[in-house]
């Protein structure tokens, strides 16, 4: 049986891992390459590196990080943040990433998804989506709106509609970040995760809000996510990957445990 995936997210700013709350106030917490290696040894299924480097002239640092990770870690990993062109995608993939995650640029230029899927294959293209609760209107029937620019700019686009469109354009996976839940440690936003999981036939990764293993159980069992993104609960050493997976396995959720 296919296991539910546990994915650890590392926000990387100018070569250092950082962690923020509700998309703001990032503090440095370590070296992404050594952290990635540690999580690999703990049995994480996949990694995501979000490049939140502010200045564009330091963007090549993330390529160095990707290259160092790829030489030491033999599980899939994605890179997101600041991917705006096919050349950006190519640079990250050829440095050793398995997938690229597009967010703002995909909303602004949806062709980036279809072109990227055509050239590199759908399995490489992850749509990262930042969604936030909004009043239900005819434009936002699901009650969740898509935001861009790191959660700062509302787009007046319905999250479920955008998920379907991204799938039609050729995205191979959707990583759904809830702005409301991000950094709260109070659990994933189950309602929108379930809505999007039902609306598309590609895998959905839930993101934002994980604080304890029970939250992963909820998002897998109640919202039918295919994978769950975690960050602070492991970055601050509250749990190891092994502890989270043992809990989930005990709850009857299929996970990959190290043998």
């Amino acid at each position, binding site marked *: 049986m296919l296991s539910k995936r546990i994915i650890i997210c590392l926000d990387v700013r100018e070569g250092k891992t950082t962690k923020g709350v509700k998309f703001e106030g990032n503090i440095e917490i370590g070296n992404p390459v050594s952290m990635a290696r540690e999580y690999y040894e703990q049995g994480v299924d996949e990694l995501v590196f979000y490049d939140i480097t502010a200045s564009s002239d330091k963007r090549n640092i993330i390529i160095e990080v990707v290259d160092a990770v790829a030489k030491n870690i033999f599980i*899939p990993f994605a890179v997101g943040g600041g991917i705006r062109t096919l050349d950006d995608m190519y640079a990250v993939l050829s440095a050793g990433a*398995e997938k690229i995650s597009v967010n703002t640029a995909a909303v602004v230029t949806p062709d980036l998804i279809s072109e990227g899927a055509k050239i590199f294959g759908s399995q490489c293209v992850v749509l990262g989506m930042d969604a936030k609760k909004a009043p239900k209107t005819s434009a936002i029937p699901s009650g969740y709106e898509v935001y861009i620019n790191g959660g700062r700019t509302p787009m007046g686009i319905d999250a479920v509609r955008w998920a379907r469109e991204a799938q039609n354009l050729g995205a191979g996976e959707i990583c759904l970040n809830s702005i409301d839940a991000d950094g709260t440690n109070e659990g994933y936003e189950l309602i929108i995760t379930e809505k999007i999981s039902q609306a598309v036939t590609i895998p959905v990764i839930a993101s934002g809000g994980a604080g304890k293993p029970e939250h992963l159980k909820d998002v897998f069992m109640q919202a039918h996510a295919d994978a769950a993104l975690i960050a602070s609960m492991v970055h601050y050493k509250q749990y190891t990957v092994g502890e989270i997976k043992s809990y989930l396995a005990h709850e009857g959720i299929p996970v990959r445990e190290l043998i």
Partner: protein
Amino acid sequence: MLAIIDYKAGNLTSVKRALAHLDILCAITDKPETILSAERVIFPGVGAAGKAMEVINSHGLFHVIHEVVSRGTPFLGICLGTQIILERSEEDTATCLGIISGMARRFAGGEIKIPHMGWNTLSVRRPHSILKGIDPRTQFYFVHSYYPVPLNQEDIIATTDYNVSFASIIGHQNVVATQFHPEKSGQVGLRLLKNFCEWDGVL
């Protein structure tokens, strides 16, 4: 020297990185003489079957691949490489290499997410050198929408369940092929690659 056949299908460097980590010399190449003189050959690939076969045919690799296989050189297909060593694929209704009898079929949608993406287990049908020392409960990383359907049951080495039970490792004589990605399957995946590099191509 190990040759990784370059037919422009996706990112071949992850296999090369995994082999480098195992201290195994390899070259990513489309040169017939390098492929034919290699001690062993890896045939990886992601992407679409039709496009892959176009490149194979236009680069004169069709006969090179058949020739290296007929010489008994140990040959490992990975992912798309596993599908296109069959006779044909439902993807792009492509005519493929025909090294192993059978075809690649698309997963039926509805109850399952497509692609089949993530970690899944194997049920081993018959022992093979590439599985030496690997615990039968081990999971491997898959990402694919089509799966191999070999014509002869004896060519199935292991199966995996994803709504249907499909052949996840196939093999015939000196050819072995995994639908999953050993190069992305952690330390156990590296072990499988190492096993392949120690295999003489005889069962």
